[in-house]
């Protein structure tokens, strides 16, 4: 089998596996979020937290709970890093510097997992395991909770109630993320991912040199890092590190984990609104965008245009031999299409056009399939905008799932869409305006600009991957990117919940001949088209200055 054929089989096998799993997993998640009963452990937890699990929350209370939980999480994680030298299992590492600690705390709480630090030389075992990895679980659970609350806005009628954040958070963590993570971690250990608390120790190599063998609770963190679309690597090299991703088949497993929940949530959505076909339509939009993007990334990498790739005869700089070019490109596309941001190969060394597709993936707003939870609500917002635009074009009443898209609804949806482009473009512009911040670029010319643009795109969209040449552990970048991550996460969440609140209040309009059907291929095509047009209009000038200038001769 040639490398390319094997690579195509690799990609197709993943898509088939996802197609098979998304129905049962989506149904399972539907049952989790609509079950009336609480199990004993959960009842105990609610008692400790001090909340009444039966109490419904209106949108503003739900949003306040999300913000309170996230604020406390940032503060605790910041303190944890600053005090790591006073705690056990610190490996003797000093307290994390304040700007790095702030950046990292925001990064993990917002499900971004942008890393301004190098894992193996900064974070002790305890901070990794009991600080960072905890946020891997709960930040993903927060995303799912918000998505489910949003869907309830469509499903419910004439009510202010959107569910209870604490219940959704607890169930997402304990019933969905934890069981899959346990399974995933054990599978990864079987593949060679390490899981120990041995101090890093030196060995004498075959030729008499010294090499330090590192350890850590890596497998347990790796599983949730992918499953929760977090992406924060235990080590600096992330999923390229042989202790995080030792074989070609663990690579398959990791890609599967990082796509599986986001591709299954549309099914959950369909079940919750009582129309499975609506779920199919949403997953179809995601799949179309994902397949186009994966194909484009892979094609660019295999064709390896560019001076260095042509000199090498392959785009192999920054890739691991065991994965090869296509499997690396598949990982790269998947990690930027979701909000994961873990990498198994280094995007900075990708071909100009391959790197451009990765940037574009994030600029789509990470909706194909997007982050855990955030992908679903992002895609539903795009569907709402599509309904509105289509309604204007053909003179039909804009409504989606029986809910009217009036002035208030479309304002909230538009504001949602505008948040990240504003952060990306303003942030990049500020960084490029000063010589001191420009000095962080490793590469010069258009590629250097791509590094900066990539950093702000990644942070604002809560992705976390990087054109890693750029030096970002400076006070400016740590602070600016930290703000982008926080605003890029929580402003959209507030807008989504506000929209959910106003949708839930409405009585559904009965379907009429004037209603635009939102489950047909026509609608799927319209959402895809609208997404591409919006993103192209917003980001084309910036892309033209970076990867396109570099890649087109």
């Amino acid at each position: 089998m040639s490398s390319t054929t094997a690579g195509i089989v690799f990609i197709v096998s993943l898509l088939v596996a996802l197609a098979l799993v998304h129905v049962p997993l989506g149904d399972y998640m539907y049952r989790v979020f609509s079950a009336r009963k609480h199990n004993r452990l959960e009842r105990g937890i609610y008692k400790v937290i001090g909340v009444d699990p039966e109490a419904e929350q209106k949108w503003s209370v739900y949003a306040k709970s999300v913000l309170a939980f996230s604020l406390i999480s940032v503060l605790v994680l910041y303190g944890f890093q600053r005090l790591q030298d006073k705690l056990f299992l610190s490996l003797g590492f000093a307290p994390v510097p304040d700007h790095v600690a702030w950046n990292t705390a925001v990064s993990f709480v917002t499900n971004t997992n942008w890393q301004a630090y190098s894992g193996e030389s900064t974070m002790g075992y305890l901070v990794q395991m009991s600080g960072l990895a905890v946020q891997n679980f709960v930040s993903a659970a927060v995303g799912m909770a918000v998505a489910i609350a949003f869907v309830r806005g469509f499903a419910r009628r004439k009510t202010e109630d959107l569910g209870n954040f604490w219940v959704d958070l607890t169930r997402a963590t304990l019933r969905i993320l934890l069981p899959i993570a346990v399974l995933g971690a054990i599978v990864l250990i079987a593949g060679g991912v390490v899981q120990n608390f041995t101090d890093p120790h030196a060995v004498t190599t075959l030729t008499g040199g010294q090499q330090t063998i590192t350890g850590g609770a890596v497998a347990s963190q790796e599983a949730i890092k992918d499953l929760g679309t977090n992406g924060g690597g235990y080590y600096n090299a992330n999923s390229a590190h042989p202790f995080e991703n030792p074989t070609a088949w663990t690579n398959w497993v990791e890609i599967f984990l990082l796509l599986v929940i986001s591709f299954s949530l549309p099914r959950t959505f369909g079940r919750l609104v009582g129309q499975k076909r609506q779920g199919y339509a949403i997953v179809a939009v995601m799949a179309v965008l994902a397949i186009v993007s994966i194909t484009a990334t892979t094609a660019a990498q295999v064709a390896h245009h560019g001076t260095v790739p042509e000199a090498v005869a392959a785009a192999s700089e920054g890739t691991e031999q065991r994965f090869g070019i296509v499997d690396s490109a598949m990982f790269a596309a998947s990690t930027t299409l979701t909000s994961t941001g873990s990498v198994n190969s280094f995007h900075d060394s990708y071909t100009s056009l391959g790197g451009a597709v990765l940037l574009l993936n994030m600029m789509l707003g990470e909706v194909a399939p997007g982050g855990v939870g955030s992908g679903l609500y992002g895609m539903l917002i795009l569907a709402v905008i599509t309904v509105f635009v289509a309604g204007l074009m053909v003179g039909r009443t804009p409504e989606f799932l029986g809910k009217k898209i009036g002035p208030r609804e479309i304002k909230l949806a538009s504001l949602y869409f505008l948040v990240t482009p504003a952060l990306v473009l303003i942030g990049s512009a500020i960084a490029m305006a000063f010589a001191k911040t420009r000095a962080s670029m490793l590469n010069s010319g258009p590629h250097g600009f791509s590094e900066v643009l990539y950093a702000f795109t990644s942070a604002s969209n809560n992705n976390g991957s990087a054109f890693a040449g750029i030096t970002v552990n400076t006070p400016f970048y740590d602070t600016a990117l930290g703000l982008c991550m926080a605003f890029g996460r929580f402003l959209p969440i507030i807008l989504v919940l506000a929209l959910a609140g106003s949708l839930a209040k409405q009585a559904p309009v009965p379907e009429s001949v004037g209603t635009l059907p939102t489950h047909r291929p026509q609608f799927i095509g319209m959402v895809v088209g609208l997404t591409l047009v919006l993103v192209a209009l917003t980001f084309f000038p910036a892309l033209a200055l970076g990867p396109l200038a570099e890649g087109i001769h």
Partner: protein
Amino acid sequence: MGTLPGWLRQHVAALRALLVFTVICGALYPLVITAVAQLPGLKDKANGSLVSANGKGVGSSLIGQNFTDKDGNPLKQYFQSRPSSAGDGYDPTSTSASNLGPEDTVDTLPDPALVKAGKEDENAKTSLLSTVCTRSKAIGELEGVSGARPYCTPSGVGAVLSVLGPRDAAGVVSKPTRVISLNEACPATPFLATYKGVKVECNTYGEDYSTGQVVPVRGQAPARPVVPADAVTASGSGLDPHISVEYAKLQVNRIAQTRSIPVGQVTALIDKHTTGRAAGFMGEPSVIVLELNIDLDKTAPYKG
């Protein structure tokens, strides 16, 4: 908590919730996984797939190593790993890729005054293209094959010109006034005598050529060079334990000669330490360099 104001109540609940999840996800979960990892069959892997030679631990089969002497020159009796950007090479405490882009082709030359004084110029920087060319040339010489590559000079740097002169409407310099080989410091003889009828000059330190059009020159090297791609590029982790089967085969003659064993014996060892594609389609066939070298030492000790 009934007496607390609402906003504070949310935060107290949040703090308690975070503590509960820290206990479950941040302590119980990793500890249970670590306990499961003690099962036979998993234990060795969870501890880092350590390997030993002559009863002594020498590293991990998953982590690559340098097979070089103290000055970084390849040891002829061993299979060589890929180039590495992790610290000084294969350093697990600073894993890294090069992060250099596909059009990183122009070197920043060192100050000749500093070089003369035996000092390092901190501003000097070798481009990714020149790095690839230098590696290819060195490997070609080591293995006795051609190290030629597209866009590389015979001297082993990137073949890149700065073409100075007026630009036409498309931004191209069609009638150059001066042409400089950017990566060849004077007094080197440039890889090309003339370009568009203009004599090609070497790069004089301190002169500014940045207004010129940067033109990489493809040259005559075959599109598929003899030295394989993985041999001249650094991996993502800097710890890549593998090389391609092609790169292993390229090293066979040297190994057989240095260890005075038949070529067939070396080829057989390569086959033994080659992992094919998982399930027939995942990844690329790869050779584990450390295990291969350990096996070499065991079956055909080097008497150097």
